[in-house]
């Protein structure tokens, strides 16, 4: 097990190295640069000033030198400095990442619990009204992209019903409280969760239907166990195994989704930071964002592998 972990982590190094090259190339292939982005916003400036600013940011150096400088920063545990405000990228991300993790964590957990529960119910009631309604609901769920779901939720719950706030992480002017923060969390988390809950439901239903046909379920019934034990202890444990894969695959898409959702709800996480950085051509921040995302996704995949060995005793890594 330990050697498996070690091997996977070692294999991650070249992957991350590859990621840095791709990210750097893309960040520098974007039209314009940070200086031009600033200048258009400010008053028109002279050519000398532009050249001077570029010199300050190191943008006048050859690309490979810029790349090596950046790699040097990474190896020192920094991610360079923002072109816009000069703050360390690592510090900015460290400040904003918890917000994003809160949003994503709650959304993923809610999606998983709701989706799995409904999926299992749907499977147990196969071809009955409950099953058909849930399947239809799931179909609607996967058909609505999360940005549209976000706008819909804002319209219904924030603008029409006025039940929930539509932006930020807390009410401006009030002192920060957990309850207030959670009220702000509901809509963006729901926007991210509903689509994914529908996906989990589909897979949980299919997984449970498959498990219900297994011989060991018949054995459990033949032993005269009560239905709840048969379904939960004997069925669900096995049905969860394939869901782990879906869970692992949901994570990367969640980063993409959170960029859009954080923008709609003005949630100050790394997604919003990323959009601002793209607008300002703040390449150190853009690159830092992508690198951190890549690392988190890699670790999540590793955690998925480990989750298999916990859920399924037949899986062992060596």
């Amino acid at each position: 097990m330990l050697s498996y972990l070690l091997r996977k982590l070692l294999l991650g190094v070249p992957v991350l190295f590859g990621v840095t090259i791709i990210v750097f190339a893309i960040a520098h292939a974007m039209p314009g640069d940070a200086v031009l982005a600033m200048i258009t916003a400010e008053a028109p400036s002279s050519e000398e000033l532009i050249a001077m600013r570029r010199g300050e940011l190191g943008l006048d150096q050859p690309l490979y030198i810029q790349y090596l400088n950046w790699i040097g920063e990474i190896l020192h545990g920094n991610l360079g400095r923002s072109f816009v405000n000069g703050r360390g990228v690592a510090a900015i991300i460290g400040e904003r990442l918890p917000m994003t993790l809160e949003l994503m964590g709650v959304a993923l957990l809610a999606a998983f619990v709701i989706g799995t529960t409904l999926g299992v119910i749907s499977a147990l009631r196969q071809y009955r009204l409950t099953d058909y309604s849930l399947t239809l609901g799931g179909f609607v769920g996967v058909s609505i992209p999360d940005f549209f779901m976000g706008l819909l939720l804002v319209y219904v719950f924030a603008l029409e019903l006025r039940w929930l706030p539509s932006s930020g992480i807390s009410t401006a002017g009030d002192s920060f409280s957990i309850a207030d923060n959670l009220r702000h969390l509901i809509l963006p988390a729901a926007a991210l969760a509903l689509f994914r809950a529908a996906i989990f439901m589909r897979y949980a239903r299919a997984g449970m239907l498959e498990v219900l046909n297994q011989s060991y379920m018949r054995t459990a019934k033949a032993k005269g166990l009560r239905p709840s034990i048969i379904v939960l202890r004997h069925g669900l444990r096995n049905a969860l195994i394939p869901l782990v894969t879906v869970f692992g695959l949901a994570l990367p898409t969640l980063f993409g989704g959170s960029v859009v959702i954080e923008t709609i709800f003005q949630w100050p996480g790394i997604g919003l930071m990323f959009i601002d950085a793209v607008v300002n051509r703040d390449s150190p921040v853009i690159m830092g964002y992508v690198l951190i995302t890549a690392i988190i996704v890699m670790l999540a995949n590793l955690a998925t592998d480990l989750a298999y060995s916990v859920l399924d005793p037949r899986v062992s890594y060596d």
Partner: protein
Amino acid sequence: MRRTDTLTRDRPEMVGQGPLLSVQGLSVEFGPSGNSVYAVNDVSFDLAEGESLAIVGESGSGKSVTVQTLMGLIRKPPGRVTSGRALFRGRDLLTIPDSELRHIRGRDIAMIFQDPMSSLNPVLTIGLQLTEALREHQGLSEKQAERQALDMLDLVGIANAAQRMQAFPHQFSGGQLQRIGIAMALVCKPSILIADEPTTALDVTIQAQIVELVARLQKELGMAIIWISHDLSLVAGFVERVAVMYAGSLVETAPVERLFAAPTHPYTIGLLNSIPSLTAANTRLVPIKGAPPNVMLPPTFCAFAPRCDHAVSRCREAKPVLEPVVSGHAAACWRWRELHGVSRVPAAAVATDRASKAAPNEPLLTVFGLKVHFPIRRGVLRRQVGAVRAVDGVSFEVLRGETLALVGESGCGKSTTGRAVLGLERPSEGEIRFEGKDYADASGERAKERRRDMQMVFQNPFGSLNPRMTVGRIIGEGLRAQKIGTRASREARVSELLALVGLREPLRDRYPFELSGGQRQRVGIARALAGSPKFIIADEPISALDVSIQAQIVNLLDDLKARLGLTYLFIGHDLSMIRYLSDRVAVMYLGRIVETGTTASVFGTPMHPYTRALLSAIPVPDPKAGGTRRRIVLGGGVPDPSKPPSGCHFHPRCPKATEICARVAPEPRDFSSSNAAQHIVTCHHAGEA
């Protein structure tokens, strides 16, 4: 007294009048009415306290559905009980609500299933799976339940039971798992044990262990048993009464001796004729003609009539009911009175005289020192830390025109050997000479050349045919791949092949799922024959088929061999069938051949202790032989082929092993009495008195 007396039942109500279980007129259908599958039709039987009853039938005969209906295990829908009662201690199992039936299941009536691997939950410890029924039905504490489960594990012969309670199913062998399955069924000391083909997925020597165990436990615990099986010979040895089912109906019931001595229903007679006898070789098998019954038709006539040699118009117009032949023996046949006493083997047992065939002596295939090792890799750098020695130094010859059978239990390397000969597995070492040319390292063109002359018939006719291709395309594919002939000539060849294996031309455009198991295996054989090979490797070609169909396929293989001058390497584990169809036999154990010789000499005077044990484990279709035959039941299971025992691989299980066997691997020695054919045994103690 040992622990057993604490395990005997102490329920007061057991001293009863009348049967313990009485099934009356049970009918079960599946699917919407009007388009039903008639799975069980008007089945009635009684089971007395402590009695053992076997229900015997082929796949689709309704035997499993019958018992699963009693247990409330069939899914409704699509299943429907359309009539009948099943009285257990005065309560009708078919009408009481499931919440009530649940308390009978597992406590009064328990069940063991066919495949122990899939019938235990893979993600729960066996300790939990053993104790949960006790806790459910008897409200025991975890401690108490554990103690009873441990006693039960001891009783079924699981060593170190206490340590193994925390283990998961995949950490046990198949035989051990079935023991655990039995322990699980018996923890609550049921009064009826239903065993649904519990040994079908197991090897012969393990099957013998399980049968013996269940028979012993039945005596010790005094329970009644319903044993479901497709194998008449297996149940011959230990049940009191047999009920034969066909197409959902009982066709004959009788005490076991009576059934074998005076079978009355033509189907029972046909079944008995399909089993090759271990004592009388050289008679051609008499299969039951035709295909399994169509259970989509309402049961208004005798379902066996289309396959029956004695059917008359009445058989096709009305369904016969069970009529008493003598007391305790009943048959459902319109003509039983006239047919009574018809010889068990009609048409005067077509003799096939194997000995008189042109004596083959030129080797077609020579395998020498063949090893196939699969590496085991571990660690950060995936270094090879060991190898599964699937085949570990195997040498044999197949002579032109003969059938050599490679026999052994699962995991002995017989299939891997076959695959290596064909080039589907790369040998780690050794020579494979076919017609004098070494193909061991062949690749590319030379490998193709080998495939022209050598083909394989696979075990599972369900998995080995591409479900998206028609029969015609499956058969012709090899010809296309090898660019043999033109399109038109290939089409003609496919027709020829269909006729050769006894399939009708219209089947060419069907898909595999539309065919029966026997038909599929015929397609598999036709596919193998397409390029006119000289040599066929048949890897357990009949083990997935029903008994009556097995005989058809074996006869077909026999005919083809004679007509086309083929040579067979037949891989199998069914020894009675192998005795019937092979000229020579090689017995494998854990990657090595332990004994080779002519079929007559190996079966007649087996010399290796493993061969002897294997032969003694074969069930004999004769209830009387059970008592007189001495059965050598081997302890334990086949060891892990990545860590084979030192010296002779068989020594830890061998009743004759001495100190030398653990140290030195024995050399093969020839013990034949004549010099015409060798009888090679690899054992230090062979030939000793």
